[in-house]
């Protein structure tokens, strides 16, 4: 069966192209996966960590507000408490609407419950009541609850931080998986081109040289050309054609 040179070359380039296309597709798909993982990291964990931080900050401010009330600074204390409460509520809403991890729902419910109980204690008047200046009341009930809420918020932050760490490790692996096909495809393409160069030399350049040598020999007196080409392609056909042409040229000479 004659395999055309065009077919051979085309097959070679098709194989190279398929390698590059597959490597490119895999890399692109992996990078898409990677970028979606990045956005999920930001959406899922980072938001909750930031909300937890803001809740802790608001709680600290509320604690300061309560201390001011205990000292009889009604106006200043109330303004700090209202501002901190509003900040806490908005951060809590963010955390509540961003539940992504196991146990996160239970922690949110616990924060909600404990914060309401805590707020119920300071929402009632403190200034000009028996509570004003009562440090043991503050220490035994308010401060205790304040610490308990902080503990739950810290736990919420911790599970999101752990998840963030694990996802970052996975991202690192995914990044490597996205890059590796590209690197291997580049190396593969280099090896492929070296091989292609070898075959082009073997299948195209060498037969041409063989035909050139055979034609030169003919010029020096050989009746037919024999290049020694074994391939079943256009070069073999060319040798046969040249021989037939020489045969046709020689025939009229013989007749003469």
């Amino acid at each position, binding site marked *: 069966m004659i395999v055309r040179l065009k077919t*051979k070359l085309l097959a*070679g380039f098709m*194989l190279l192209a*398929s390698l590059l296309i*597959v490597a490119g597709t*895999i890399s692109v798909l992996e990078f898409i996966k990677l970028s979606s993982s990045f956005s999920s990291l930001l959406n899922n964990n980072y938001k909750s960590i930031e909300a937890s931080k803001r809740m802790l900050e608001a709680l600290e401010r509320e604690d300061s507000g309560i201390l001011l009330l205990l000292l009889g600074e009604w106006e200043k204390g109330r303004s700090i408490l209202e501002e901190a409460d509003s900040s806490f509520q908005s951060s809590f809403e963010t955390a509540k609407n961003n539940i992504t991890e196991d146990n996160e729902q239970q922690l949110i419910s616990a924060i909600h419950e404990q914060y309401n109980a805590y707020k119920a204690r300071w929402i009632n008047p403190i200034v000009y009541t028996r509570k004003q200046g009562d440090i043991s009341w503050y220490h035994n009930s308010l401060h205790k609850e304040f610490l308990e809420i902080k503990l739950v918020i810290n736990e919420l932050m911790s599970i999101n931080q752990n998840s963030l760490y694990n996802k970052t490790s996975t991202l690192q692996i995914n990044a490597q998986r996205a890059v590796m*096909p590209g690197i291997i495809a580049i190396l593969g393409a280099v090896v492929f081109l070296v*091989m292609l160069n070898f075959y082009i030399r073997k299948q195209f350049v060498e037969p041409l040289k063989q035909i050139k040598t055979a034609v030169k020999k003919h010029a020096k007196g050989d009746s037919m050309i024999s290049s020694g080409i074994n*391939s079943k392609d256009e070069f073999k056909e060319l040798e046969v054609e040249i021989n037939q042409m020489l045969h046709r040229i020689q025939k009229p000479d013989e007749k003469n």
Partner: protein
Amino acid sequence: MRTEVILKILGVVLLFNAFFLLISLLISLYYKESSVTPLLFTTLICLIFGLFPMVFSGKHQTLSFSEGIVVVVSGWLLACFVGMLPYVMWGTEFTLINAWFESVSGFTTTGSTVLHDVEALPKGLLFWRSATHWIGGVGVIIFVLLILPHAKNARITLLNAEMSELSKSNFHFKTRTTIQILVIVYVGLTLAETVLLKLAGMDWFDGVNHAFATIATGGFSTKNNSVAYFNSSHIEVIIMVFMLISGMHFGLLFGTITGSRFNIFRSKVVRAYVVVILAGILLVAAKLYTNNFYGWIDALRYASFQVISVGTTTGFATADTAFWPVFTQMIIIYFTIQCAMTGSTSGGLKFDRVYLFMKSVKKQVNLIRHPHGVFSLKMDGFRISEQLERQTMLFIVLYVFTFFMTTLLLSLLDIDLKTAFSASITTLGNVGPGFGNVSSLGNFDSLPAIAKFILTISMLLGRLEIYSIIALFTVSRH
């Protein structure tokens, strides 16, 4: 040297690997695992580079011995190279050197691992890991020979380059028949063990993987605690029997099945091999019992499994021999040096050479006593030529020299003597586990990257029986 002929046969090696990669890929797809991309990409690489030389090369009937040597050595290297690609692409514990180590360990059927958590690997990769054992067990090139229908001369040359002269004894057939026997026995044993392991309680996946590793005398398990994980005496007995059988000459196994007079029951070498293993088991069991490690039953159970596992170069484990008495460790080290029989799937020095060495020593003693006497060496009724005797003795010297050099290089990297010594001998013998930091339930990850690379060379030298590698460097280009 005809590069196009070599490239075409190497292409067939790649296509054969692609077949097993494709099965691994299908497993990965079935279980929806993260190893789909690495396996898919490696399969395509193998297909592309396997098919490419076929587009340009015609049919070739002949192959010179030099070309045969180049095909065999580069075939093994190429298989190890493509074998590591899925690992490298999958990542995690697989750094570049770890992936290379795991791949070479797989193909050379050594079974040493760098993985701490084998069970974390996706099933597709676990299957590929076991498949490297199975492909390498009978020899990367042997399967290629089976599918080279037109090249009779090339087949003979490649078989000569792939198998040692001693391995070819007991194969009293034409080249093609010899290859067919090898493959039939290999596939038959694998199927039989898989079914028996399933009946003993393993699932199909673990059964196939452990059968691949047993028949190839490899040792990769799908579990972190190797065969100890299953804690089943039935499974241990099945694996022990198949390890012992796989360590025997395949020609003799075929003869036993077909009722030929060349069978395992009539072979003196097989008898000696079994007797030495039994003696090893009894010595180890007695020491374990007297040192109050186990009762008699357990001492025999663990001793027989470990001795057969190491004595056949498989490397499975049911106990951590690093904690056993020094005497038992010395016995196990002896079996690491001795290895299994020629003509089997094992690598390393091989029992037949030790047997021939002992006979040669006896012959020399006789020559001292009777200087004018004529003494010829025979193994299983076949006369061993002076040339084969010389070759065998030289091989033993080369083997010891290679082992010594590897130990020396490892000690240069400040690795302790016990680890360096046992890592060198276990990789050269394609056994798997050693002692020190590389014990039967440990792994090779703690070694420096250069040490791992040196050990992979040791594995390849053990698998290719040193001569092929030396011959490669003496091959003329024309």
